[in-house]
């Protein structure tokens, strides 16, 4: 039978599920972030306060998960918008490349910060 809507990949279900899961993780971690950074020690937060916290490996592990999920969630969302609005194949491939490169750059910068400070 003729198909009107073009058959594309079947990965939709997985992507949809991961996007919800990463959203929940982000939500929890964001609250954690706000509580630990802004509400536990009242008053003005100083550079040294944060440095002190970042010495703990647990803290950094959470930071790392936060970074991973934020980058995944954000760039997956951008890719979905590209799929919505960009239809020429070549243009999609180019944009996919750009998105992946930017995502990895951000991931790298984030990891650099985490690992440099924590001396892991």
């Amino acid at each position, binding site marked *: 039978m003729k198909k*009107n809507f073009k058959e594309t990949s079947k990965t939709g279900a997985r992507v949809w599920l991961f996007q919800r899961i990463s959203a929940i993780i982000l939500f929890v971690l964001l609250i954690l972030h706000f509580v630990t950074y802004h509400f536990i020690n009242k008053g003005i937060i100083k550079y040294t306060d944060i440095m002190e916290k970042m010495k703990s490996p647990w803290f950094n592990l959470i930071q790392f998960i936060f970074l991973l999920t934020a980058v995944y969630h954000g760039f997956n969302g951008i890719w979905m918008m590209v799929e*919505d609005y960009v239809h020429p194949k070549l243009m999609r491939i180019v944009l996919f490349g750009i998105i992946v490169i930017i995502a990895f750059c951000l991931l790298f910068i984030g990891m650099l910060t985490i690992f440099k400070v924590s001396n892991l």
Partner: protein
Amino acid sequence: MAKQKIKLKILRYTPEKQKKPYWSTYQLEVDQDSTVLDVLNEIHWNIDGSLSYRRSCRSAICGSCALKVNGQNILACETPIHKFKGKKLKIEPLPGFPIIKDLVVDMDNFFEKLRQIKPFLILKKPLPDKEFTQSPEQFSEIRESILCILCGACTSSCPSLWSNKDYLGPASLLKAYRFIFDSRDDGAMERIDMINDRNGIWRCHTIFNCMEACPKNINITEYISKLKVKIVENSI
């Protein structure tokens, strides 16, 4: 009956004659409780016979008179003009579909997509001796979704469809829900396989426009979400 003067702007277009759609303005006197369809009829019968639009049952059952008035997709036959509170009426054809003439749009693609999800009962088990029975609980699962009159207002209001004409659209997805969740139907797997596609159900980003547009007040977005959960459960 009290009369009222109204002004309206209607988007006109004859693809063979004009390059682009253009606006025609009309001023007329109508009864205060006229519907949008009454106004269109008045224009067509007494003012400008060249205006084209679809209508049939005038009872909100046939689903042929869906159009866009002041930015909202509505059924012309059931919407009174006083709903727009004395504002100038701006009448356009349903967005997202190609225009055939004036307010008449080409819905072939819409119905073709509907056909693809096989909008009929698929039976694998032997037929029962008498009629099919359904418990009230089983029926309540699909009760709202069977009210659809296939007017196309929902699919036409969907931004995902505007940006990607290959998208299946809310009306077909609602129809898929109606059969997948029907206790008598055995074709759920075929249908799920059909809609589980990036241009199928996953193009829906829960925008809720379909639900607002539906003249039958069907909560389409909720049913699409139920379908998504079912597909994810099936594919894990």
